[in-house]
């Protein structure tokens, strides 16, 4: 299979050589393209794999990829798969040696895929991560080498229903104490004060991290009083009836549905929910940064978003062009457009201000950028084990009523 693929590629390349190629777009709009605009050369098209399979992302990224393809002088053959299927698709392609030329990965998955040897270090193509926030570079690196570039990020914040808060005369909370009081005051017969996701997947872990980290907890050892306190907060919120017992079964999309339907006055969620909420009639909502444990402490939240990589396809020419495409996706102008359009935060701190001016809704998320932390920053490819232990402990405490400290210790040992 490998050989047949290669020879077909060689044939395509040979055909392309005989055709005079007009590289009008090459090196035009992409100011600082790596390698000084070697351009498409004999590479005619690049295969791209990502999981932006829903609107509006699907269209937005298609336009972006097409524009960058034109800039580096290739056409883009794009494949999108559902988010849950991306890794299994990548694994299949790894074993059949059919990896795409440009691959998008969710940032916590990068180190595991890089560890398998399937990705090319971007340094080989002269790409550096200058100007990016440290946490972002950390997540896209493995053993000191940079393997991906991530243009934009997102994180979670506190959404609140303006009408319900005004009715109850409650201000958006900024500390844990205020959060508990506000949630209790907002809880009525039909409405819970707060909704969040404590599901038994990595999503549940992702939602718990800002509480754990802001309180000084750490994933290298979760059996600490700091992490136990954070878990106690969740236990209290559910135990007092301010949050539904169903949080243990809700994904973030379910949480958003509850919030949009008015079943919860506040929710912990991310900016990717804007389109759904904006499309909900009669819902006015605001967003503030997540509450901190106390007024003196800052919120440390995990960052989300996807990073663009160049897999080892065994064809240096194609890889070089692929690297140019990745670089193009991370150009300043592109990032600003993308962030504004999609409600995401640029990963280069210098670009945050222009975006917030154009899209003020991003401000609460952007505010957390300097302190955003990578999930794989400490444990790298071992992160999934810790992530599993965290959601296991959260479920144990919320469902079985196990004491948070005991639940965390048990989960850490069991995994």
């Amino acid at each position, binding site marked *: 299979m490998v050989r047949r693929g290669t020879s077909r590629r060689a044939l395509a390349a040979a055909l392309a050589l005989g055709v005079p190629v007009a590289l009008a777009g090459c090196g035009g709009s992409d100011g600082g393209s790596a390698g000084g605009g070697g351009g498409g050369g004999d590479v005619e098209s690049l295969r791209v794999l990502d999981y932006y399979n829903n609107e509006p992302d699907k269209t937005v990224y298609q336009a972006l990829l097409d524009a960058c393809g034109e800039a580096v002088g290739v056409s883009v053959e794009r494949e999108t798969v559902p988010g849950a299927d991306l890794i299994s698709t990548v*694994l299949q392609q790894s074993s059949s040696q059919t990896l795409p030329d440009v691959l998008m990965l969710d940032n916590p998955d990068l180190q595991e895929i890089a560890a*398998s*040897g399937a990705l090319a270090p971007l340094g080989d193509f002269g790409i550096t991560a200058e100007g990016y926030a440290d946490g972002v570079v950390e997540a896209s690196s493995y053993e000191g080498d940079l393997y991906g570039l991530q243009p934009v990020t997102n994180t979670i914040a506190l959404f609140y229903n303006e009408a319900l808060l005004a009715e109850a005369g409650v201000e958006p909370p900024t500390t844990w104490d205020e959060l508990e009081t506000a949630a209790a005051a907002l809880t009525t017969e039909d409405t819970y004060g707060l909704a969040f996701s404590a599901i038994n997947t990595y999503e549940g872990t992702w939602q718990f991290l800002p509480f754990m980290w802001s309180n000084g907890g750490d994933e290298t050892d979760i059996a600490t009083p700091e992490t136990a306190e954070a878990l106690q907060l969740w236990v209290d919120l559910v135990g007092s009836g301010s949050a539904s*017992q*169903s949080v243990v079964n809700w994904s973030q999309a379910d949480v958003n549905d509850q919030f949009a339907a008015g079943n919860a006055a506040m929710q912990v969620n991310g900016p990717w929910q804007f389109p759904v909420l904006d499309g909900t009639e009669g819902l006015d909502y605001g967003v503030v940064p997540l509450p901190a444990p106390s007024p003196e402490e800052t919120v440390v939240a995990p960052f989300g978003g996807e990073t663009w990589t160049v897999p*080892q396809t065994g064809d240096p020419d194609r890889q070089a062009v692929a690297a140019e495409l990745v670089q193009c996706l991370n150009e300043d102008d592109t990032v600003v457009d993308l962030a504004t359009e999609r409600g995401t935060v640029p990963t280069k701190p210098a670009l945050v201000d222009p975006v917030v001016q154009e899209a003020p809704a991003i401000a609460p998320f952007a505010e957390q950028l300097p302190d955003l932390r990578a999930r794989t920053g400490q444990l790298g490819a071992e992160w999934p084990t810790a992530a599993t232990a965290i959601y296991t402990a959260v479920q144990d405490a919320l*469902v079985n009523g196990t004491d948070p400290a005991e639940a965390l210790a048990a989960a850490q040992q069991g995994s």
Partner: protein
Amino acid sequence: MSSVAERRTPASSSSADAGRGGRPRGLRSPRTRARVLELMFLAPATLYLLLFFAYPVVKNVVMGFQEYTTRTFFTGEAPWVGLDNYAAVLGSSLFSRALLNTVLFTVGSILGQFVLGLAIAVFFQRRFPLSGALRSLLLLPWLVPLIVTSAVWRWMLDQDNGVVNRTLELLPLVDARPGWLTSTSLALVAVIVVNIWIGIPFNTTILYGGLQEVPEELYEAGSLDGATGWKAFRHITWPLLRPVVTVVLVLGVVYTLKVLDIILGLTGGGPANATQTLSTQSYELSFRQFDFGQGAALGNVLIVISLVFAVVYLRANRRAVDE
């Protein structure tokens, strides 16, 4: 052409043909030809079995002894680890939990599906207006895709706004909202109930078919001797239905042991692993944690359990027939 000649040979062997000097050998010999033909007819089925049954099973057994991770897919290297995967899987605190859940889930589902399925099948033996239409409507749960089924049930069983709890609230003496999918004690029950609902059509259809095979005269003769109602069922229907019952139960156990989508859709194995079974745990290991070696090891354990059940049932059935 030659076959005509050969067929004629025995009749005239002593005369002209004998002068041709010996029988045709090799491929032309009729016995060899028949053998080759047999093999050619066998080949497609054998190839199919080897490719789609033997290969996956052998591969799964082999994977169980390897460290098979994301890395393996790119490098092709899967180091042998002996029994490490089995030790890790069987030694995990989750294993006994998942095994118990698997047993409870299977027994509960089969019991419910079979009893209700049989009751409905017996009920539809009577002819009444619209019985045909109602019987075909019963098939509906079987026709709905399982992911849709689990999504709708998950919605109905929601603790706060689900139709089940909202209906319960209207009843007198009920003032709590049971957490069907959020409490450890109820989640397994809820999952079993949904699986029973899904399995009833299968049981009803097969058992109804079996009931149609029982000759009407037996009931007439029985009623003359005073065997009606329960007695008729006990002494006429049940003994004659036994072969069908065995088929339904064996298939039911094998289907239920490997149920994955319903549990994933309803609870994802939660809350706090309350509905984790061997199959969901194996899925979790392989496709969420990407530890395919351990996932395969657990999958093999599940296959062995299925085999044991199948053998036990088949032997019990054979003994029953022998008697």
